[in-house]
Structures are given as structure tokens and as C-alpha cells.
């Protein structure tokens, strides 16, 4: 294994980063995207004097924590070989219910618990559709996305609804040692996912089912339940991201994430996961999230028109999927 990493390192021609990657037990793909992130950072730091400003870095990492938390959850579903495009709709619905309940006088803790419960129900619906009924995951979650989004519009009358309180202020704009609380939460969730996938039986089964569902079944694994919990995990992180969204925006917004349907998927794919499942490390997804954040922030700093930003994002998605296809994870 070390030999292949050596070769990967030589190919990259970036000894220092490769050595760091080897020390961290990173695969060739992770080292590659880490280099891509560094190149992007170097480019934007040369082209914009504001890019490396601490305030700018903290701002864009804070803004990306919502996407990052959902990407950590989606990563689990995608390693299993599934996909979930309903996360932003789950975020919209769960936060809408939470905010409405708080505005009607419910205790914030109880309302937050209900929001998490709603996300779990959404996850169960997605899980049953995909794992038990074996509906194509893109179609199934696209359909449930429309349903969840529709409910969010209905109960909010398609309006943003404000809410405030110390809890939301703390997770939305609070800082510890100068670093936004939301960044700590995002990193904490990445750590939990990493530990779950690397050191628990469920984690090994996630990779097994993604790599070879037949072999997993023959080995006595309940493949359906592994898939089911992967989808539930994806929805649960959407609700957690929703709490931070409400904290940062100060309101629930039924249209939240409508323009960024594929952003989370892009971040996970950029992170070196295989679309056919079974491969990828969650640290790669974290780097993928940061690449998207740096790209978006850099283009804003360079005053790139939003149309071009959309084009660039589209090209990034295409390239990420194309690279996955070259690695053998393409459409079959």
C-alpha cells in the first residue's frame, strides 16, 4: 500500500504534500485533491489581496459549514452506492416546522427535537423508498424533495419566518477562540462520521455493501438495513445543518438551497468518492467542501459575474464525475 502511495506522490511531483499525505495515511486521490485545493488557494491569494485575510477565511468557512455538515451525511449514503438530493428540502421543512412551533410559544429545545424528528421521518421515507422498495435513489429523493419542499412552502405560506434566541445566535454567529461555532460543529460531525466508518461494524458494512452487495448479503449482512440507515443519516445531517442555517440567517426560508441542488453532491464527488459506491474517505469530502468554498469565495472576490460562477460550478461537477468515471466508477 505504501508503494502505491510512493508512486502517487512521485506522480504529483509534490514531495512535501505527498509526504504529509503518507504520514496521514491518505490515498493518492486525497493527496491529489489536497494539491488542487492548495493550487486554488495560491491562485486566489495572488489574484485577490483579500483572500488570505483571516476575516475572509473565517467568513467563508462559516458559510460553508451548512454545506459541509450535509456533505458528511451524504457521504455515508454515497459510499453505500446511493444518493440523496432531498437534503436541502429536508432542511427547509424541518426548520420551517421548528420555527413555526417556536413562534407559537413552544420551548426551543422541544421544537429543535421535533425538527430533528421530522428529518428522521424524512430519512425513513427516503430509506424505505430506496432500500426496501428499490426505487432509483435519484428519482426517489427527487420526488421526496418536491414533497418536502412543497410542505415547507405550504406551512410557511412561502414566506421567510424569523426567529431568534441565544442558542441560534451562538451556533449562527458565535465564536470560540475566534473560530465560528458552526465550523466546530461541522468538524465535529466529520469526526463522528470518520470514527463511525473507520472503527465500527456499521462503517465496515457501509463500505462492504457499497463495494459488493451480493458478497455482503452472502456474509449475512442485512444489506437493506445498511442502505436504509445511510439514507436516514443523510437526512439527519440536513436537520443539523438547518439549525445552523436558522442561526446564521435568523429565519427559516422555504426556498433554502433551491439553487444549489447539486452542491452537496459535487462536494462529495470532488472529495474522491466513487459514484458506484464502496470507495472514498470522509476527509476527502471535507477537502471537497473546502474546494467549493474557496472557488465560490475566490470568484466573488474577483467580481466574476454570477452567470460565469454557475458555469464554472457546472464544469467542476462535470470534471469531478469524469475523473470518477476514469477511475472506474462511471455509469454502468
Amino acid at each position: 500500500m505504501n508503494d502505491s502511495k510512493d508512486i502517487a506522490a512521485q506522480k504529483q511531483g509534490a514531495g512535501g504534500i505527498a509526504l504529509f499525505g503518507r504520514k496521514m495515511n491518505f490515498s493518492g486521490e486525497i493527496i491529489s485533491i489536497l494539491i488542487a485545493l492548495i493550487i486554488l488557494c495560491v491562485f486566489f491569494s495572488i489574484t485577490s489581496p483579500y483572500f488570505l485575510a483571516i476575516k475572509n477565511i473565517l467568513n467563508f468557512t462559516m458559510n460553508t459549514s451548512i454545506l459541509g455538515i450535509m456533505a458528511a451525511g451524504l457521504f455515508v449514503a454515497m459510499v453505500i452506492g446511493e444518493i440523496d438530493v432531498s437534503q436541502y428540502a429536508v432542511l427547509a421543512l424541518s426548520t420551517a416546522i421548528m420555527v413555526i412551533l417556536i413562534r407559537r410559544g413552544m420551548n426551543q429545545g422541544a421544537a429543535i427535537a421535533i425538527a430533528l424528528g421530522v428529518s428522521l421521518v424524512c430519512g425513513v421515507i427516503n430509506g424505505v423508498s430506496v432500500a426496501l422498495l428499490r426505487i432509483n435513489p435519484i428519482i426517489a429523493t427527487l420526488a421526496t424533495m418536491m414533497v418536502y419542499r412543497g410542505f415547507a412552502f405550504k406551512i410557511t405560506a412561502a414566506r421567510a419566518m424569523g426567529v431568534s434566541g441565544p442558542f441560534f445566535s451562538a451556533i449562527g454567529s458565535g465564536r470560540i477562540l475566534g473560530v465560528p461555532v458552526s465550523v466546530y460543529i461541522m468538524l465535529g460531525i466529520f469526526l463522528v462520521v470518520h470514527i463511525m466508518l473507520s472503527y465500527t461494524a456499521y462503517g465496515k458494512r457501509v463500505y462492504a455493501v457499497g463495494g459488493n452487495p451480493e458478497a455482503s448479503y452472502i456474509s449475512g449482512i442485512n444489506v437493506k438495513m445498511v442502505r436504509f440507515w445511510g439514507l436516514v443519516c443523510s437526512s439527519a445531517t440536513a436537520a443539523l445543518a438547518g439549525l445552523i442555517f436558522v442561526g446564521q440567517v435568523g429565519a427559516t426560508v422555504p426556498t433554502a438551497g433551491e439553487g444549489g441542488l447539486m452542491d452537496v453532491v459535487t462536494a462529495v464527488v470532488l472529495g474522491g468518492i466513487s459514484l458506484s459506491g464502496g470507495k472514498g474517505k470522509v476527509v476527502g469530502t471535507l477537502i471537497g467542501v473546502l474546494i467549493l468554498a474557496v472557488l465560490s469565495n475566490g470568484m466573488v472576490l474577483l467580481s466574476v459575474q454570477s452567470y460565469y460562477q454557475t458555469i464554472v460550478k457546472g464544469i467542476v461537477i462535470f470534471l469531478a464525475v469524469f475523473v470518477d468515471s476514469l477511475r472506474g466508477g462511471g455509469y454502468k
Partner: protein
Amino acid sequence: MAETSEQGCVLEMKGIHKSFGGVKALEGVDLELRCGEVLGLVGDNAAGKSTLMKILTGFYHADSGRIFLDGKQVYLDSPKTSKRLGIEMVYQNLELCQNLNVAENLFLGRELLREPVFRFLKGRQMERRSIEILHKLKIDIQEPRKRVDRLSGGQQQAVAISKAVSFEPKMLILDEPTANLALKEIGKVLDIVLQLKQHGIPAIFISHRLDDVFRVCDRIFVLRGGRRVALKNTAETNHDEVVRYMFIG
């Protein structure tokens, strides 16, 4: 390892019939597997080998007939039941997860856990046990952390057989274990099959390669058109005779 029935047979299949619509796949097949022997199961394509083994592994249900394990009649209604009763099968297409390492594959579905709630793994212990399991069959893989897709075809087959053996089965079914392997690798896999015999694990060895069958099997069972056409001691027959049974009768 395997217990014997009064007749010295671990497995007895009697009068097995199976039809798919109007097609008769098996017609009254009787098969016995003796304690500690390797029984070669040969036949042309569509002879009924797969159907017979799928009945034994619980994937298909026989239309009629009886199955005895250690002299007791059993009802193999699902793959789970079959596995629980000690029938393990190593599949032709290597049912391993290529993206997992050797130890993870060997313990897949029955991981050693530190505690039951979060189900944290005993990683080191699984690796140590993996080496023991591999050494039992004299398989020379020293790195249990090596990913299976980085092993040769023969090594992968060896891991698959070890995995089946580690369940301490009553019997093994080896489905074309030497198919798609290089000559050198075939020899190593056959050595492992002979090791099974030394450990007293009875096995049914399915293969199209008669050289392999003659090297490791004690008896050869020939199926043709869903019927048992011959059962010969390996020492008392030859290639030509077996081929004749397989294709002519």
C-alpha cells in the same frame, strides 16, 4: 471437525427432483458426501450441478426428495438456514469485497466487537485471528491489512476458502475454485483443497477441469441431463471414462 452419521456420510441427498416450468432440471438425484472426503461434481453445462448446489445452499427448494445432515433430516428453506446448519459455499465469482482488506473480508458480518452499543471493532484481534485462520490452511498471506483487490486471483480464492472454513462448517462446496486462474495459482488452490482433507473437512468440488478433479477428489459424481449417471472412485476410473459419462452415457 465434521460429525459422521451411522453410514459415515455427512450429507445425504435422496431422490431430489426439481423442475422449472416444463423443464426437468433434476430427476431423482441421490448424492452422498462421506466424512473427510472431497467429492468431485462434474457434468456438462445444464447438467444440473448448479441447481443441485442451490438446493443444498437453500437458494432453491426441491420439488421432492430428502436431505440428511449427520443422519438427521433437514429442511433447507433459505441460505441462512443452510449456513446455520454448517453448509458453506465458496462461489465461482469470488464473493469477496474487493474494497476491503483481508481481515475485514474474513470477519465480514461477524465482526469482533469491543462493546454492543456503538459496535466498535476489535481491529487488532481480527487481524491476529485472520493470520491464524490463513495459517491453518498454510496460506502465505502475511498482511491482513492488505486490500483484497491487491492480491492475485489465487490468493483471493485462498481468502474466500479460508473465510468459509473459519465458520467451522460441516461441509464445504467449492464452485469452480480454479476457474480463471494461472497454472501456478491453480496448484496453490488445489493444495489448499488437500489441506481441507487433512483437517477432515468434507467438500464437494465442482469443476470443468478434470485434471484438478482427479488431483484432489476421492470420488467423482457425474450428472447428465439432471440425472446421476456415474459415481466412481477416482482411483478406479480415468479421464476418458468420466468424459464418456459426461457427454455420451
